[in-house]
């Protein structure tokens, strides 16, 4: 590689649950679940003691209670977590010039070129972990690697409370035995297709025939193969909108029918809105992303990409509002050719304010929508995505090709 980089992925261990244990000594050493205190909710964080019972985030709390009846269930305090997050990020910034936040509790730090000033990456990781522990009282695991994706996988391997370093030389040896699902964006659909070809591990993928891979996964195949070989060219982007949520899909065949696009919009908007609500957030800006089917260059980025954004009058976490904005963006976009990918995103996120109740009818309409969304979320939590659909929201096959890191929704196990 021409320009070897050193990337550190810092990921807080059981963030919400650890904060609760820190603030309440009685919880230390006990299985603690945050979120889903009602019988129908889902867990948003589980302490390592709770994980020992098989509890993980995004698990319905009813199931968690079965697995561990004596676990302590807490409602959670987003404001408190956000404050801790802010302090942690301030510490991160002391150790690297470039910090890209992925969510409240994880970030990429680009350590390239800081060695003379701060020492080797492993020393930086040690000092960073000590600083977070001393100043905030929480454990953070660090993964170090020449590329982002591997750094993230490494921090996972380092948990709990550890450091894992993958050098350029050791990179293939580290990745090869891991299942393909560990690569970003390789979801269940892609995994299934790969398994049919006898590709189970990242090593299988790296060694596979690029032509055959393209037949299996489409144009995306060569990109995935590069990732499997540890070639992730993406840089740490500090100015990336650290708080954004989006959902996208690549269509099985390029789509020209706007009704199909609108149906995909509705599906993505509902899903994004649900994740916003689950994270206690509202979004002010809606982004529509369209990738045209016509290839203009090689590689996964070889398709023209259109993005359109609209800022709303007031922030929302209602799927209907997001879908309406995205649909109007679509209507205002002139499309002369079919598209291969459609995404709906939200940025400009902020914490949802408590809602002022009203005693007059027009104010009540918004309240009713909020209550409706609440009930829909409960049903989805209980019976899984797709349990409830709005009319017109057809099931858009998710090829699982999204590079987005999702907050509020854990990837399926």
């Amino acid at each position, binding site marked *: 590689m021409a320009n070897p980089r050193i990337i550190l992925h810092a990921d807080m261990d059981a963030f919400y649950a650890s904060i609760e244990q820190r603030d309440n000594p009685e919880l230390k050493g006990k299985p603690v679940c945050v979120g889903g205190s009602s019988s129908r909710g889902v867990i948003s964080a589980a302490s390592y003691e709770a994980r020992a019972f098989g509890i993980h985030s995004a698990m319905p709390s009813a199931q968690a209670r079965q697995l561990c009846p004596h676990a302590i269930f807490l409602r959670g305090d987003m404001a408190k977590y956000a404050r801790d997050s802010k302090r942690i990020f301030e510490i991160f910034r002391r150790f690297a010039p470039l910090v890209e936040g992925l969510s409240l509790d994880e970030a990429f730090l680009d350590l390239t070129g800081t060695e003379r000033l701060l020492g080797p990456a492993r020393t930086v990781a040690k000092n960073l972990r000590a600083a977070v522990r001393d100043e905030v009282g929480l454990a953070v695991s660090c993964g170090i690697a020449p590329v982002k994706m591997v750094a993230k996988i490494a921090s996972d391997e380092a948990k709990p409370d550890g450091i894992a370093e993958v050098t350029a030389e050791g990179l293939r040896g580290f990745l090869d035995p891991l299942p393909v699902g560990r690569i970003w964006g390789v979801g269940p659909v892609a995994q299934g297709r790969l398994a049919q070809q006898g590709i189970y591990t990242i090593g299988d993928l790296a060694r596979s025939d690029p032509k055959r891979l393209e037949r299996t996964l489409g144009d995306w195949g060569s990109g995935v193969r590069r990732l499997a070989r540890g070639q992730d060219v993406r840089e740490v982007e500090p100015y990336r909108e650290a708080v954004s949520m989006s959902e996208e899909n690549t269509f099985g065949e390029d789509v020209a029918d706007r009704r199909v696009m609108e149906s995909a919009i509705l599906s993505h908007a509902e899903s994004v809105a649900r994740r916003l609500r689950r994270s206690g957030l509202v979004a002010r800006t809606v982004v529509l992303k369209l990738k045209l089917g016509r290839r203009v260059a090689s590689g996964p980025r070889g398709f023209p990409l259109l993005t359109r954004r609209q800022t709303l009058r007031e922030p929302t976490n209602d799927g209907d509002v997001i879908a309406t904005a995205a649909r109007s963006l679509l209507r205002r976009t002139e499309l002369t050719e079919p598209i291969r990918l459609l995404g709906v995103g939200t940025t400009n996120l902020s914490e949802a304010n408590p809602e*002022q*109740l009203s005693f*007059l009818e027009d104010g009540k309409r918004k309240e009713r929508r909020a209550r409706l969304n609440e009930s829909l979320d409960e049903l989805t939590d209980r019976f899984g995505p797709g349990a409830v659909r709005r009319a017109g929201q057809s099931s858009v096959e998710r090829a699982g090709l999204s590079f987005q890191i999702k907050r509020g929704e854990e990837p399926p196990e």
Partner: protein
Amino acid sequence: MKLEIDKGDLQRGLSRLQAIVEKRNSMPILANVLLTASGKGETGALELAATDLEVGIRGSESANVGKSGAVTVSARKFYDIVRELPDELVNLEATGNNYLEIKCGRARFSLAGTDAEEYPSLPEFSPERLVKLQSPVLSQMIERTMYAASVDETRYNLNGVYFEVIAETGKIRLVATDGHRLALVDRSVGEEVSGLASGVIIPRKGLAELKRLVDEEDADEIELGFEGSSGLARKGSVTLVMRLIEGEFPNYQQVIPKDADLKITLAVEPLVRAVRRVALLSAERSRAIKVDISDGKLMISSSNPDLGEAQEELDIDYSGAAVSIGFNAKYLLESLSAIGSKEIQFAFKTGNTPAEIRPTDDADTLAVVMPMRL
């Protein structure tokens, strides 16, 4: 037009119009004051009038009139000039081309104006029934309700205060709400009021002018009357006319909680101070504070992701169910400060239902505040 007038009288007459003409307006002439001299000699009068087509004020000051007539000039500029004049008699004269010549002591101004004919006429009407109200009573009623009126122009029917006569009690009632809080006050005004109005909505601006007029110190009584979609108030030589809001005021009776049967009594001042302090760390936009009521204790708290947390406890006499209610601190503070009492009764039911605030010494005043969902 030619006359001589006391500087103080002229200044007072002009000052009263400033709030009406000050607003930017699409018709330039509405920035003017219409001056009309009438009568002859010492018994003459100068009438000063202004309108923004929604609200109009007309007042008369006594003047020594040499020649009757009318002219209009910039109300703001004329007022600025008069304020700077020495305390002497002021000579006013309309000269050719609608100029107004102002002379006082050795100062002399020539102010460009417009033909009085072009000034829109104020609605002339005399309601069949004018009722005398005590100024301080009306002033207090306005103060206690106006804050709750909506400023959201898309809800025009809430952009004012509802005025009605309660037949059973013979009292006047003012009610205002913006959908999130409501303020209501009943008062008897010392005169038979039946038939005065069967429910009209007085716009905020008209009400603000009415309040200003009521608070002027010259007379204890003000006459008020309504006709069609207009309202009229008269105090001494000053007449205020306004266009009422045409629209339906919501059924406010439904808003007043009937089942808020959990009650606590609180001294207003310590409560206001506590809410103010805790609100310092509330989220900037929502101003949300949390009120936890439990055995013998009322706790007010707030938290802001960027700043931190605050809480304060008050002792209360309470032994009912524990209830947590979120409020917009601004709504609570405005209600508490407008209620004009040292002690209130706070009635509530749950965290999602309206709470009621009543002074313990005044059964005719109440405020309702809708909570925030926490």
